[in-house]
């Protein structure tokens, strides 16, 4: 049942030109970034040879490309999540789901899974770029996998936050703007924490960036994994509660 809703979600996304345009734009921009990083690597290459234990191509080219990718997708994800529930509310089609023999949990999980499938497609397409380097050199497969996973988790949490904010309104623009605001806030929230001596303040811990950074460096800490999973679950539960609550208003 969750799969049925997820399939409808992903079909609806690709029926509108938005999904295609987003995939295209992201791919072009990150293709350019990737190229620039690669170029940069060739310049640095001679100097790196002199260093002992120098960072490899995976660190310099791929990690930094995905660092940029995270920021670009922070701006793009609200455009994908904005329609999920807000559009159904505006078109009064949410009634169809609520009148069907489904629980709110199934509806919300179906919507989230639909978004996550899109994220999966997006990230998998982006991963093709670093994989192309295998033609010329060896890559650190472990690090590559860590980057892939961190990207999925990061965008998964973007999607959960976007889904919740989309459930609060029937206006897609408001959903998009508030999602963008929330994501940006979670991104920069550690700026305050930086001034604390050891940099381990609560603010730092809350930051999306902080946890993402660790995984990009190939450090796979279970606390980072827990952070993303807790974030996703929290916002999904909030969405379920919000939709349940609306029947009481």
């Amino acid at each position: 049942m969750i799969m049925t809703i997820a399939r409808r979600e992903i079909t609806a996304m690709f029926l509108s030109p938005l999904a295609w345009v987003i995939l295209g734009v992201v791919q072009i921009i990150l293709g350019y970034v990737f190229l620039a990083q690669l170029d940069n690597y060739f310049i640095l290459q001679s100097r790196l040879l002199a260093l002992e234990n120098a960072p490899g191509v995976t660190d310099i080219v791929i990690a930094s490309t995905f660092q940029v990718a995270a920021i670009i997708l922070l701006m793009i994800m609200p455009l994908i999540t904005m329609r999920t529930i807000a559009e159904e509310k505006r078109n009064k089609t949410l009634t169809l789901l609520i009148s069907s023999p489904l629980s709110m949990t199934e509806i919300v999980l179906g919507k989230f899974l639909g978004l996550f499938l899109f994220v999966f497609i997006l990230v998998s397409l982006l991963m093709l770029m670093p994989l192309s380097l295998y033609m010329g050199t060896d890559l650190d497969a472990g690090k590559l996998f860590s980057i892939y996973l961190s990207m999925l988790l990061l965008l998964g949490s973007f999607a959960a936050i976007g889904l919740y904010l989309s459930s609060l309104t029937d206006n897609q623009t408001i959903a998009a703007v508030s999602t963008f605001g929330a994501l940006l806030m979670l991104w920069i929230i550690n700026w305050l924490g930086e001034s604390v001596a050891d940099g381990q303040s609560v603010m730092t811990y809350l930051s999306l960036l902080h946890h993402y950074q660790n995984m990009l460096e190939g450090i796979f800490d279970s606390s980072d994994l827990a952070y993303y999973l807790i974030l996703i679950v929290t916002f999904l539960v909030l969405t379920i509660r919000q939709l349940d609550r609306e029947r009481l208003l």
Partner: protein
Amino acid sequence: MDSTTLVKVENLTRFYQKHCAINQLSFSLEAGEVLGFLGPNGAGKTTTMQIITGNLAPSEGQVSINGFDIIESPRQAKQLIGYLPEHPPVYRDATVDEFLKYCAQLRRLKRAGIATAMAQAKANCGLNDVGHRLIGNLSKGYQQRVGIAQAIIHNPLVVILDEPTIGLDPIQIREIRSLIKTLGKERSVIISSHILSEVQATCDRVLIIREGKLIYNASIEALENQGKELSITVALKQPPGIEYLIEIDQVEHVETIDDNRFRLYFNSSSPAESVVKASVEQQWGLYELVPDRASLEDLFIELTRDKPVAGESRESRS
């Protein structure tokens, strides 16, 4: 035959903030009954339907569908309901076939049964020719039919239609009415409408609500009988004077409508026979004879406007 109560609504009350939309509404619906829900705008018809289908939570009271409480066991209850809201909940970017298939899956139909269910629903709603078209490109009437098709695709025991014939042309209205009658044979149907002739044509029983209170609950026959007035209208080519008309048996009082038409009031039994007889004997040239009946509209207006609400709920089911 044992009649089974499919829908049971008890003391339903619903507040929107401080505004009371429904106040202590109770009624029940048997299998094989078509219930018409009447009321002026803002009377609480849609709210009641939304509560019955689980789209809104009641402030107080219970709704049970074939014994399943809509709040406590929503899944079983919703499985038995087909609901067409005011705005048909259709995806404009899907084709009719895609949409109906999705609806069938949402209602947990078995994979093998989906094709048959879709064909059945499309045939019932006259959608056979538009299966491949995008819903967004269909006319309002067709979108409405798609809305009805999604409500009946899983063969629900209770079909709830909120103003089903809105936006349809007269032929489609007739088709939908006959569809409702067919549905009403084995299932229960609740329709809301403010078109009284529609309720008269399709329903077995009428509920009239006003300001969230039930003010009338009776079979359609009772409603029609109540509408009967004690007068007939006659039209005569060579009318005699009023004094001759008043002479006729049973006639109590005569009112002149125009040169040829008169309204004859009587007390108990109709003077129609005597009028015909007198007309033939005295060559008045009778060419029209109509028993008057206060229209359903009149009754509706009288019920929803003039009477005080308190204690007016009536049970006169036969």
